[in-house]
């Protein structure tokens, strides 16, 4: 090294080297720095925008599902039509089919229109009846069968308007599209507008969306989530009853008792891998073991619950072990020191202290199971089910649907009204998930302890 060597190897790049003026290279480096930060920031903004976009799209499409067009009018329940025997005998009453009730509703609507003095234009009576949902006669029939005293009286009924009329007020159906549609006509929509001004037709909150069962392909306005919510609750019950005890027991064994040997290693690797197995593989497992081998019924919540239990187990075991590990050894030593057995140490001291962490993990595992769709498709939960399952435990073997599968099912149908239903169902699903996660966060905040 000679004394003449420049101290700054970069000096020859810039002869005006000064501490106060940035040389071009420094400028370039600082610009790169700024750009890099901007890339990072825009990546975050992009990710958050994607989230916002997703939520806006779902809520925008789904919120209308909670409101529905209803027609309110007085209906005279003509005894001569509904009860030919006149004895109010339930067997006799059941003979009056939905067709009879449909005619009743149609003439009631005609009478109401005449009473309000509305000009129906060129609409034929047959098309007039089409403004009422095909589901409404059945609803009215069930109401009458449940309370035969109504026969012969005039009752005020609120019935669903047809899906096309409803779509018109939600922007799905326009005058132009109605002209091409054989299920409705621009005249019908014009009449609907007049009915709306007269107060016969109105948009109301639709509780039936949460309580009614699914409806057939042509009646999106009547489709509800009742059976799907019941099925999902049943499955979550099965998962909770099986996965929580088994998961906690397995974690306690592996964390507190298991000797460190090849077999325990194998179990641990196993659990880590099971957590990453694609969910559809669990569906294949359920199909071949529970349905084909064990002969359990298809579409039953018990099978769905068992499959989801196996899927959720590793997701419960991993956080539970972390929670057990977080309890300091001094607690165990103290308990063992005063003569407790190892199992007593665990049940009396370690488990209660780890409980908040265990519950948080369990709730998050349950929330994941609630949204799982793919395995349920394979075990036949896509079937069209209208009957509510019975009370557990027998009801666990009855066919039912599940929230995410119902959503999938609705997206596969032709009528565009079902897209709104599916998005609405997703809002319901997300509300359940947010509630569960909120409970989990509450547990963590309230009971979290730092040692």
């Amino acid at each position, binding site marked *: 090294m000679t004394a003449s060597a420049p101290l700054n190897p970069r000096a020859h790049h810039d002869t005006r080297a000064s501490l106060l003026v940035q040389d071009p290279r420094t400028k370039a480096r600082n610009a790169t720095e700024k750009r890099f930060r901007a890339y*990072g920031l825009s990546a975050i903004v992009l990710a958050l925008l994607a989230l916002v976009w997703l939520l806006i799209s779902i809520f925008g499409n789904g919120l209308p599902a909670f409101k529905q067009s209803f027609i309110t009018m007085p209906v005279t329940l003509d005894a001569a039509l509904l009860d030919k025997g006149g004895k109010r005998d339930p067997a006799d009453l059941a003979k009056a089919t939905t067709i009879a009730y449909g005619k009743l509703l149609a003439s009631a609507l005609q009478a109401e229109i005449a009473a309000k003095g509305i000009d129906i234009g060129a609409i034929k009576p047959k098309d007039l009846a089409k403004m009422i949902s095909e589901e409404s006669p059945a609803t009215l029939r069930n109401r009458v069968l449940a309370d035969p005293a109504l026969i012969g009286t005039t009752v005020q009924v609120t019935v669903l308007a047809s899906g096309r009329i409803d779509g018109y007020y939600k922007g799905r159906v326009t005058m132009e599209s109605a002209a091409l549609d054989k299920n409705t006509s621009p005249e019908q929509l014009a009449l609907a507008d007049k009915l709306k001004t007269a107060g016969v037709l109105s948009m109301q909150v639709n509780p039936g969306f949460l309580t009614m069962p699914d409806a057939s392909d042509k009646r999106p306005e009547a489709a509800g989530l009742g059976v799907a919510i019941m099925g999902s609750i049943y499955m979550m019950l099965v998962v909770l009853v099986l996965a929580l005890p088994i998961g906690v027991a397995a974690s306690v*064994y592996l964390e507190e008792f298991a000797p460190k040997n090849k077999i325990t290693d194998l179990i641990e690797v196993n659990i880590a891998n099971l957590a990453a197995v694609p969910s559809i593989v669990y569906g*294949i497992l359920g199909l071949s073991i529970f349905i084909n081998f064990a002969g359990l019924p298809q579409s039953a919540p018990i099978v769905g619950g068992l499959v989801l239990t196996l899927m959720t187990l590793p997701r419960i075991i991993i956080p539970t072990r972390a929670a057990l590990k977080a309890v300091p050894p001094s607690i165990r030593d103290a308990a063992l020191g005063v003569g407790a057995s190892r199992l007593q140490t665990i049940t009396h001291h370690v488990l209660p202290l780890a409980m908040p962490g265990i519950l948080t993990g369990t709730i998050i595992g349950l929330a994941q199971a609630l949204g799982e769709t793919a395995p349920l498709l394979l075990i036949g939960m896509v079937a069209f089910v209208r009957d509510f399952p019975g009370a557990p435990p027998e009801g666990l073997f009855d066919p039912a649907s599940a929230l995410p599968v119902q959503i999938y099912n609705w997206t596969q149908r032709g009528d565009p009204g079902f897209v709104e239903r599916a998005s609405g169902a997703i809002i319901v699903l997300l509300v359940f998930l947010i509630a569960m996660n909120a409970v989990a966060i509450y547990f963590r905040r309230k009971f979290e302890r730092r040692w």
Partner: protein
Amino acid sequence: MSLGLLSIILLVLAVAGYVLGRRKAVSQVEGDIRKLHSLPPFYGRITALLTAVPAFFLIAAWLLAQPLFLENKAISLINPAELPAGKSAQLVMADVRRVAAGLNMLAARGEDVTPLLASPSALKTALNGAGVVLETEPTPSTLAATAALRDAGKTSRLAMTIAALVLAVAGLAFGLSRINPEYRARNATEQFAMWLLIGSSLVAVLTTVGIVASLLFESIHFFQLYPISDFLFSATWTPKFGGGSSLGILPLLWGTLYVSAIALVVAVPIGLMSAIYLAEYASKATRAWVKPAIEILAGIPTIVYGLFALVTVGPLLRDYFAQPLGLGNSSSSVMTAGLVMGIMVIPFVSSLSDDIINAVPQSLRDGSLGLGATPSETIKQVVVPAALPGIVGAVLLAASRAIGETMIVVMGAGAAAQLSLNPFEAMTTVTVKIVSQLTGDTEFASPETLVAFALGLTLFCLTLALNIVALVIVRKYREQYE
């Protein structure tokens, strides 16, 4: 007896066992519990455990295994001469099971079903009314098999109830007989509990065994019907449920890899850059709310992404990109599914990368900054190279997630199996075909259905390999800095 009632009786017996066991122990020492080996509740607990646990295990095992034994008898009653062309006895058994289930449903409603078994046409109408739709009228041998199955089912149910109750009472008696002041009830209880704990941790192993066994067994079955070389190397996928179908996996694998590749192209830059920003630049306050917000993306069910692809992203890409560019006019496409799946896997990349970048020792950064490097130069030349193995692991995990994803591709990618480079064309993936081959009424003996198991096996092996490689890399990397 219904299952609910049986469970309640068993629970009552267990409570009785607890009370009796405790009382017997206390009475044997005339109330002076100091003379007992264990505290009185332990005598109650071991008796209750011996009463209820074996009985419940018996019920579970019985319910799982009974169809095996029941159907053997019923299947022997099916007359091979009556089998319709191309149908196996197994398939007829599926009908038998459905008819039996339908009859049980009618019987549960209080209807008399005995005359129905005598007349196939009346049976068909009655079952149609109950929602069980039969294609043809059941043959006499099917009816005989149905009757045999229902009888056997009833007998088996009764036998199970009796066996469970006998076992419970025997357990109770056995537990009580062992009680004396010297009996080490606490040790016995804990030993019992320990076996339950070990059994629980074996469930995970059994699950894996079940997965591998069911996939392998049915795949072998498939390869006996369909040559394995055609499955692996044929480039056409045209399943026909009449036979003569071509079931090559290549177009499906191509679709799977294409969609996953697009997903990774979306997710890796966004995920990695946000992880870097959060770990190196963001203030604590920003980090505290941005990180959970991005992780919400991982908590949203995949069906939601599926609907998003179907309703929003698909039509958008079709109207603004595919059609103007003349690349196609299908709203479900590889691009749609890949884009949405990319959004879904962002948090998988970002969270894990964030952890890994944070694990790079601060001293490395300090050294680089001290030499005059700017923060971005430090990140690019020191932090990321040091964290690279872990980041690769994170990307591999995201890839395995993308390959195994089902709902987004079912709703967003389409169903046409083809080898094409155009990202705006509908293509299909392994998972989509598993769903489509296994849903609906399927005949289990046909290669068109069984191929789903071979596809499942391929998927399982692919994701397992990716996971293992990723885990090994991440673990190695962690050791390096610990």
